[in-house]
């Protein structure tokens, strides 16, 4: 559903449970966007949503791939992960619902805010999951605010 005509496209691999590098990809994408002259408010929304999604892979999946593409009118982030997947997506989208362990909560995450916060920051958001296999997120940000929600 969410495609854009990319002028810049990059692919990143995310390793599950690698907390030392968790967030590196989101930081890299933020740095790339900062060099383009895109409005800071859009960059921040993209960085927050990407970071939440990257942390979700690190915390809940075995591994994942993040596809980043920048087009003249939009930024697109797609994340495919291989892991346990999500059994009940509508429940997972509720603020406060979480399956996080105490370990993750002690790290400052796992409050059940991640997926709702991704949706809040995105202009378009799609999630699909196959329990036992993995989850796919597609997130789109419009560079022209009039196209936003």
């Amino acid at each position, binding site marked *: 559903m969410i495609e854009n005509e990319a002028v810049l496209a990059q692919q990143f691999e995310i390793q599950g449970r690698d907390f030392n590098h968790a967030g590196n990809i989101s930081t890299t994408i933020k740095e790339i966007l900062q060099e383009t002259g895109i409005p800071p*408010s859009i960059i*921040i929304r993209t960085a927050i949503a990407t*970071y939440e999604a990257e942390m979700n892979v690190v915390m809940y999946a075995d591994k994942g791939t993040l596809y980043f593409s920048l087009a003249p009118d939009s930024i697109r982030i797609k994340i495919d992960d291989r892991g346990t997947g999500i059994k009940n997506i509508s429940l997972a989208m509720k603020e406060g619902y979480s399956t996080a362990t105490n370990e993750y909560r002690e790290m*400052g995450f796992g*409050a059940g805010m991640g997926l709702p916060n991704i949706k809040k920051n995105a202009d378009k958001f799609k999630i699909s999951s196959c329990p036992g296999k993995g989850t796919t997120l597609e997130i789109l940000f419009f560079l022209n605010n009039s196209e936003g929600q």
Partner: protein
Amino acid sequence: MTLKEIVHILQAELVCGKSHINDEIEFAGGSDLMSDVLAFAKPGILLLTGLSNLQSVRTADIIGAKGIVYVRGKKPDPEGIKLAKKKDIPILLTDYMMYTACGLLYSQHLPGVYPVTDKKS
């Protein structure tokens, strides 16, 4: 309020980001929960936290924080300080507890963050 004034009010140690000592800080927020920081913070915030892991610095960078104050005598991990230096984010350390640190700054007229209703504002 400048970072220099904040260092004085909180009797804080400035670990890195000395070139920002005269930067103006317009608002602040305190939380140990990075999930909440990501959900409610606004760019330019001074983040007060007792969470000293690498992800606290990462979160501050992602949201565009102007600085981090570690409360309760917490010290960030060496990897966190390394990242803060790389991203040019000032780090302050104070022995005050979270409530007291926030209260001291608020009483000196440094406001907090109010709920954002328009994500594109």
